[in-house]
């Protein structure tokens, strides 16, 4: 299966509605830049195979 390239502009537009935001074009463009940067970082994290019994760190105790 070829890798899927999400349409982050569409996602951000949907979230803009869900969160009832009022953005102008400049802010929308900067938001997309910022979100795309996070999404690029998240991709390898989401591809990492974690053990299915691994729990969240929760209230973390070092």
């Amino acid at each position, binding site marked *: 299966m070829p890798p899927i390239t999400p349409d982050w502009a569409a996602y951000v537009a949907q979230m803009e509605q869900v*969160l009832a935001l009022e953005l102008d074009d400049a802010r929308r463009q900067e938001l997309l830049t*910022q*979100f795309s940067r*996070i999404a690029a970082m*998240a991709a390898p994290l*989401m591809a990492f195979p974690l053990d299915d019994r691994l*729990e*969240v760190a929760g209230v973390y105790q*070092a």
Partner: protein
Amino acid sequence: MNPALLSISDLRKALAAGELSAGEVTEYSLALIERQNPAINAWTQITGQRMREEAGRLDRQRREGSPLPPLAAVPFAVKNLFDVAGFPTLAGARLFQNRPAAQVDAWAVRQLSASGALLSGMLNMDAYAYGFTTENSHFGATRNPHDLSRIAGGSSGGSAAAVAAGLVNFSLGSDTNGSIRVPASLCGIFGLKPTFGRLSRSGSHPFVGSLDHIGPLARSTADLAQVYDALQGHDPADGFQASQPTQAVSALLEQDLGGLRVGVLGGYFQQWCDDNARAAVAQAAQALNASQEVTLADAELARTSAFIISASEGGNAYLPALRSSPQSFEPLSRERLLAGAMIPAAWYVQAQRMRRHFQQQVLPLFAGVDVLIAPATPTSATPIGQQSMRINGVDLPIRASMGMLAQPISFLGLPVVSVPLRTAGGLPIGVQLIAAPFREDACLRAAAALERLGIAQAPAVNLE
């Protein structure tokens, strides 16, 4: 004589011998700050009246022959996200300028005041603690005392610059992803990020509850340890505080390093930095007889996870205000925060699970090593206004990436001391000394050894 240039121990001795009064210390400090702060823009509020009242109480105690508390008459200042009674807590944000004044001091400030330290005011920071440069559009950039055209680092930039310039003996900062270690590195001072949960955070404005730490910055390991000892203690109001007994460390610093096993972090930590950072690590490693290279598998994913948790929790915290008053936000962070508020839950949960995975991989390594060495920052202080730095052949945004070598370590909650070395060009750069949870003593002993050898030094910068 500038009392802020004395060690805490020497200041106490001078006070006990009657060579100085707390009142004299206060007047000298306030005049010095008034004169020199405009060059570095570290203070956002000076608390002269409070400092004079605290000094007056100490001098009365001294005249009555009462024993002096451990930090008697030591001038300090705090990052402006700590509550200080009578003042609004800014967290670097214009958004909070008109909020009601704090009713009581933060727990850490209370500990320090009860120990006799004198609060001179509150210090500049990146808005919301979201950034590594302290280029604050509303309160102005804090300037690095070593080169006023360069950043102080952040987000505790005011805390580092104030200490580096010799205007206070120590300061308090906070560290979510590197915000003590990064400015300590760029301003050439010592900074301690204790184990996650070791010190109470109550009364400080949160940024990322899952990752926030507080800690001290100072110009010597002895001062750092004494302040850390004063900050320890159980606070029932902090739900994240670990149930560990306090462990005073000041008396342990003089121990030699016999038996302390030291390693160098390789891989990611050697890849994402410049030659100056690598040289600093090599110098510290040689001095501490580091005998092994240690690789933290998945360090880059750990950094990514810390980034996603920070963006998500920080974005969520500010979402109501992002909707109601976006015009009041720091323009350099506003859309970054908003992007964080839109992160899918699956990414956040994966990042929190990754934290447990990374902990399970890394903690067993401490069976074979006591202290790990890594650069604190990829490079030295960059010019104010510069947006990106080229590291490992890649252009990285400075505001988001100067802490990339600190993030995987705070993600684990490990204790770290950042120690100041000098690059060939003269600018400071920090090296992280990292230990197992609740082994602050090991980090501090290694830092003290580097200080005794003259390798890690933090002389105050004279701005006059």
